[in-house]
């Protein structure tokens, strides 16, 4: 775990650091953070519990326990990562462990949105590239990687790979507008207008 990680803030265009590989498809939120750790009124302690059950089973051999992976910030996964429940505890646990970006073949939708809302970009690339990236990290080195969102590239000191991210989320991150609450509140007058036209909040008076 990172000592006192600083959380994402404002404009996010680049994430540098070590990579960590987590192989397997359909890794669900119950695995990322087993349900018994959800009993908390704050997210603070979740980082230590990330992948708790998997880690117990692997007795120190789990990627999140290997010493070379400590302080890693870029997580490389396979397909449909984060499927399962809508609980934000899963991205929160990853965030608090130190993860700042995730690269995979595909992501579960709610998980993807929850990550974005925390300032964690989830970017995608092809199955072949993911395998190559994972092998490169595990066989060569996991040090000195960078994910560049403006160039849409993942790089190590020797080469780079193209990555993809949908335009909407990408713009939110690079413009620093992923803090969505303030954006929503800016439209307060329009919210009031909407409330006025929704039939069930207006006695079902037939719309002319």
């Amino acid at each position, binding site marked *: 775990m990172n000592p006192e990680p600083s959380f994402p803030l404002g404009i996010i265009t680049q994430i540098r650091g070590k990579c960590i590989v987590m192989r397997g498809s359909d890794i669900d939120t119950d695995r990322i953070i087993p349900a018994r750790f959800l009993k908390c009124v*704050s997210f603070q302690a979740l980082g230590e519990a990330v992948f708790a059950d998997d880690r117990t089973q692997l007795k120190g051999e789990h990627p999140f326990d290997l010493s070379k992976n400590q302080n890693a910030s870029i997580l490389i996964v396979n397909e449909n990562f984060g499927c399962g429940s809508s*609980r*934000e505890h899963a991205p929160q646990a990853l965030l608090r462990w130190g993860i700042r970006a995730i690269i995979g073949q595909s992501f579960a939708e709610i998980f993807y949105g929850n990550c974005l*809302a925390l300032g964690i970009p989830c970017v995608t690339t092809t199955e072949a590239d993911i395998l190559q990236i994972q092998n490169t990290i595990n066989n060569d080195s996991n040090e000195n990687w960078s994910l560049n969102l403006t160039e849409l590239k993942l790089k190590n000191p020797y080469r780079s790979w193209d990555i993809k991210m949908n335009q*909407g989320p990408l713009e939110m991150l690079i413009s620093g507008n992923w803090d969505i609450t303030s954006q929503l*509140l800016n439209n307060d007058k329009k919210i009031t207008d*909407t409330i006025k036209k929704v039939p069930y*909040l207006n006695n079902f008076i037939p719309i002319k």
Partner: protein
Amino acid sequence: MSSGTLYDKVWDLHRVTELPGGATQLFVGLHLIHEVTSPQAFSAIEEKGLKVRCPKNTIATVDHIVPTINQSRPFEDSLAEEMLLTLEANCKKHGIKFFGIGSGSQGIVHVIAPELGLTQPGMTIACGDSHTSTHGAFGAIAFGIGTSQVRDVLASQTLAMTKLKVRRIWLNGKLSDGVFAKDLILHVIRLLGVKAGVGYAYEFAGPAIELLSMEERMTICNMAIEGGARCGYINPDSTTFRYLKGRINAPSKIKWKDAVNWWLSLASDQLAVFDDEVKIDASSIAPTVTWGITPGQGISIEEQLPTIDSLDPNERPIAKEAFAYMKLKPGSSISGLPVDVCFIGSCTNGRLSDLQAAAKILKGKKIASGVKAFVVPGSEKVAKDAEKEGLDIIFRSAGFEWRKPGCSMCLAMNPDKLSGAEISASSSNRNFKGRQGSSTGRTLLMSPSMVAAAAIKGEVNDVRKMLKTN
């Protein structure tokens, strides 16, 4: 792009504006909150000095962490107690209606909102829980959100959302005896897969769906999320209106006609355009049971478990993982597999009709020795109605425990848990590794009747045979 569907109509009505990032700002008509995903959201708005924008459109209850044996306060588990205290304080401070233990209306959030008539056609409904899709049974657009979105809804009663595509799942025919909504949805997820719904809303339609009661429709929409679809819905019809009429929060007599007319106008048009459509025959569905670690790994009770070779190459790795975790042999039969624990409850199958169906099987019978079996009604109202009919007595005399309402062993955030590698026959919705409270615990999803049948024999078996002997 879809047009003329219920989803399109409800979406357009609730659209506040388009946001710079390309998402739509969507108004949320009903916001349901509970103790697990709301505390951090409340702290977040307080840190920013914000208030709850529409406290009247926000409803709270406590379900995930409540113990089901002794509910007296303070709870034995101090963390659970702290979560409930936090929720109570937040509701009080922000003027939010809270249905607590003993109010008569406490229960699983997706059980109580329909029960109270809060869930209505044409609404947008959000809750920090993925099974919010349940409310789609009424022709609402209902979806699960994460804690930061709970914060957004508390602060603004709106959300940033991207419009989904719409897939119509047309179910022909009708379910045969001993086959339930749970079997239908497990069958659909098995056919389409757990990822097929990503990016889609599922409209469930067709003769087999129209015949279903509201409670059965809720079972279907509840599990849309297990098929990857963030929301699932069914067009409102006379069944919907009959269920709603007279409920405490339903439109009053004077408004009823206007309400019904509006609701009817929301149903997908005859000429609606869907992004995709699949047709499935419901009459050939048999009781269905999951054997693996995703809700898509289901088979009919008549079948053998798949062999690795018989599976699509993409499914092989997860199947291998499932066989190893479940300690099952490819090609073996699911019927006859011994079970240790039988659980009837959850927002999928913890309603009155579910308990009635299971009690019908259990009446006058005893559960097998060595099996631990318990019923957790979905809400205080379900419990009360069931007790009025004497269902609690049927369950108890059969050897089931009759518990207090809550989520219980659906996700085991309370004391109800599997231990070690126990196998449970469960009427809940998720069979993920470790879901039921033990990191090696194994879950077989099935209908409440099938759980009852498994309890009697101590092994998975075809409930239809018991129907014949009754």
